[in-house]
């Protein structure tokens, strides 16, 4: 998550200082990505250093410094909004890696790995649905509601993928289960498949 762009977007509404930015960020995204005020100030410092924001007037009576977005910052923000988010997600997706390892590690009960994850994801999907029902009751909360939708769709996609994995694992097991009836040394063949895949990398 780009805190930089998040802050630039908030400053586009008007000058603001760190505490206020944090509160506005939370209001827009719920408590999905809680920021601490330290992160906000560090990020503001870097944005100022890069010329994307500038100090707006003198510190107020509490010594708080307000910032405003610069033209350079506005260009950066526009380019953020107009370019797609790319996920170099594959290496960071622990679940996909876990499952890949589960199917290729002997003695792992893949189905129960899948089920454990499914129950956990289902629980968060239930929680998100409850939050969503509440958010939908408040028409002013479009931003938060859309963030919830995103999380809902993602959780749902994860469960679908888990269902898909389970079906494929079951099919593969059924195929293996059938082959021992033939004279061919079926288990050895089945083991050889993941080994061959590993060899290609």
């Amino acid at each position, binding site marked *: 998550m780009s805190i930089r762009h998040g802050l630039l977007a908030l400053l586009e509404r008007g000058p603001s200082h760190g505490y206020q930015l944090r509160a506005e960020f939370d209001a827009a995204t719920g408590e999905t990505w809680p920021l601490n005020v330290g992160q906000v100030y560090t990020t503001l410092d870097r944005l100022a250093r890069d010329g994307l924001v500038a100090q707006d007037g003198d510190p107020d009576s509490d010594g708080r410094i307000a910032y405003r977005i610069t033209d350079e910052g506005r260009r950066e923000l526009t380019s953020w909004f107009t370019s797609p988010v790319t996920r170099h997600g594959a290496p960071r997706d622990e679940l996909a890696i876990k499952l890949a390892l589960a199917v290729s590690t002997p003695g792992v009960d893949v189905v129960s790995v899948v089920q454990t994850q499914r*129950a956990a994801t289902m629980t968060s999907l*239930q929680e998100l*649905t409850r939050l969503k029902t509440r958010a939908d009751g408040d028409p002013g909360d479009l931003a938060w509601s859309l963030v919830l939708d995103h999380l809902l769709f993602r959780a*749902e996609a994860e469960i*679908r993928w888990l269902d898909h994995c389970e079906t494929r694992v079951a099919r593969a097991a059924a195929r293996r289960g059938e082959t021992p009836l033939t004279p061919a040394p079926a288990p050895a063949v089945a083991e050889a498949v993941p080994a061959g895949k590993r060899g290609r990398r």
Partner: protein
Amino acid sequence: MSSPVLLLSGVTREHRQGSSVVHALCGIDLAVHAGELVAVMGPSGSGKSTLLHIAGGLDTPTAGQVLVEDRDLATLSAAAGAAVRRRSVGYVFQDLNLLPSLSAVENVALPRELDGVRSRLARREAVKALEEVGVADLAHRFPDEMSGGQQQRVAIARALVGPRRLLLADEPTGALDSATGEEVLRVLRGRCEAGAAGVLVTHEARHAAWADRVVFLRDGVVVDQSGPIAGAESLLSTGGAA
């Protein structure tokens, strides 16, 4: 603490196919209380429809007990069983079985009329139920004059009509687009919040997420649950599924 509207204990259902036996359900314990919506998920053939049929008294277990509002379905006479099914239980089946010769409103009113409710009142209730699922304008159409999703909503209205205490729905959102599906769930959820007990079979995680609890079936066995488990239920159920 009030007893559950639906209580399955040790429910097993076997189908004999010549010399082999299919275990559609094996030792299911499940309690569903008033105000609670429970979703059942599981791969095809895992026993979901069997569970709903047994819960509604349309099929009988080969072992175990089914109580609907404290009445053991197995010990009731055929007539008393039919009365429980008509009065207490509302179903939406996987195949909708609307009667083709009746209009939407007649289909919905039928179970109430069978129950001895006067025809005028039954109709009024039926129109209200059709309104709830957003198809009141189709009240006078026949099933073959409606789309699949519209028929599905009529079938749901039929399950909701009258004072049902137990709602059993097998894939009720199958033919619906996602917004309509969500509407139907909202109605189902609302009924449960108003005091009914609901069991919803679905393949869609998004829809199951409306439930208080999700039960996962595999090969006729409950393998897992998600969501908070009601205190009363854990006292009553014999299996320690927590």
